């Protein structure tokens, strides 16, 4: 079993400036022992994918509260497939209506966390997903 800490990229796609959630998740995952990189605001899907590959992360966490998730999240997973980097697990959070979630999951997002999710739940999900991926490989 791999003992390296899990590496996570927390990213803000699009123009949304609400980063309270992204900053809290980044800090909380660090407190859970993960290595976390935060992109800062206003990243295009292409920039996010490039950073994820360059930083060799296990997981990308996308945060969007502007309603642009249906356009921006699937673009990230599409570019990851294009770059043959779709072993990177992508999760998302923000202001995301329930009815959008099936479409996002279909487009390759592993899970969507909506308001009220605890940081512990998110960390546990990430650990579980990374473990399952390693077992598959």
């Amino acid at each position: 079993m791999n003992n390296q800490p899990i590496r996570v990229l927390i990213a803000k796609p699009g123009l949304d400036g609400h980063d309270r959630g992204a900053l809290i998740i980044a800090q909380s995952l660090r407190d859970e022992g993960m290595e976390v990189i935060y992109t800062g605001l206003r990243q295009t899907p292409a920039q996010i994918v490039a950073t994820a590959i360059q930083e060799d992360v296990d997981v990308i966490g996308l945060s969007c509260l502007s309603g642009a998730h249906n356009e921006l999240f699937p673009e990230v997973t599409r570019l990851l497939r294009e770059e043959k980097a779709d072993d990177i697990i992508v999760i998302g959070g923000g202001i995301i209506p329930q009815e959008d979630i099936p479409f996002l999951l279909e487009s390759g997002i592993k899970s969507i966390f909506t308001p009220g999710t605890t940081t512990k739940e998110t960390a546990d999900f990430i650990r579980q997903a990374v473990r399952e991926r390693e077992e598959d490989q």
Partner: protein
Amino acid sequence: MSQSAWQERREKWEEKTEKQLSRFPERKESFVTSSGIEVKRLYAPENVDEHTEQEISLPGEFPYTRGIRPSMYRSRFWTMRQYAGFGSAKETNKRFRYLLEQGQTGLSVAFDLPTQIGYDSDDPMAAGEVGKVGVAIDSLEDMEVLLDGIPLDRVSTSMTINAPASILLAMYIAVAEKQGVSSKQITGTIQNDILKEYIARGTYIFPPAPSMRLITDIFAYCSEEVPKWNTISISGYHIREAGSTAVQEIAFTLADGIAYVEAALQAGLDIDQFAPRLSFFFNAHNHFFEEIAKFRAARRVWAKIMKERFHATNERSLQLRFHTQTGGSTLTAQQPDNNIVRVTLQALAAVLGGTQSLHTNSRDEALALPTEDSARIALRTQQIIAYESGVADTPDPLGGSYYIEELTDQIEKGVWEYIQRIDEMGGAVQAIEQGFMQREIHRVALETQRKIEDGSEIVVGMNRFRVENEVPPQLLRVDPALGEEQVKRLEQLRAKRNGAEVEESLARLKAAAEGTDNLMPHILHAVKAYATIGEICNTLREVFGEYRPV
């Protein structure tokens, strides 16, 4: 009763209470507000004895603790101003007309993110964001549609626009002129507060120095040409939403205010020429009494700053006028109808705190933009407070309350401490560049999250009193085809306008930006030639560069 007799009686009360507490202990070890102010077991006359009459004063009198007008809402209610905008200019115009029909008394425009960050709808950076959090405005043509049929000589309009505030104000002036309304008659507000964008909201474009110039250019231009316009709305709202305490909200906002005043003075303006048009924007959060005290303390501190630090003499320069919005981050996605109750309490605190205008959030805003039904309930909440509750029938009804006066004092004290620290760093701009405010806010946001997760802070319906299998409510959907339609409109505009005139106006703007001219007339000229927001902002980007956060 003599003082010693009172003292004795108070001591006996404490003894009796201690005894009772041995059988019925208090719910918590300590009771504190968001700002960490300890709430005492009892507030009694000794808590107000220390107050001079000067500090509490009378409504309409310095330092305006009890409100800026002598009669407050006995004369006129606050302006009921619901923030709205989504999709296209045409769709938003429909919502505006609906809200005005329902008895709303002022407009408040929400722009989409590309507009707020100075990108045209067809810019690659705008992908996915067109029309999402507000209305898409690319040029004067869109603004004409947005304000169609709205009498700009009678309706006041607030626009949440910051980095490109001059451009949107120029468009508003141009539309008013077409309606036959002079710029001297129009009333409204532009947010125009770039410092809190760096701190908490994120729609900055240019670095601080040229941004401050754009702002002081607006102050100077409007003092002559648009005298009834509020040239800035110095905002604590987003600082609070990002996680700050009540004290931090006021302290950082007033520190930003000081920075704007200093920039304007440096630009050669006279304090009483621009200060009466400064306005503020605060959050109404959960801790009911702390919020009321916060508004009272904010007025008192600002009055003292303007009088003692800047030697303003016009009374209107000393009066802190503010808009309030209920706290978006207090809303829960779970059991959204509960949010109506939260909003009611927060709105009541804003009214008891003497707000000049108010936006009440809709119940479904933790999930999406509000539906028409939800927006109506939010407006009705204000109308019930105004017309049915009687709370607006006398100014500052809680003035003199032992508790409120002590809380007001303590918030004031906390605010002065922060302002002093920020002064020592060289002012708000330097504090922001060092990341001071951002770190302070993040620290509290993290603490709040931990308290919610460990259950020491209870959010009804979320970490307590949950229900399983909730039925999701009907939500507003922004038509995804809208982005393409907006891009088409933009293409048509570019084809039909006078290209040479646009080029010429942008070249003139660029030359002015490189020099020291007031930029407002040049921006107005470009807007009237139907130059787009993206074209104007890109011209300024070439000269000013872009802000890169720390």
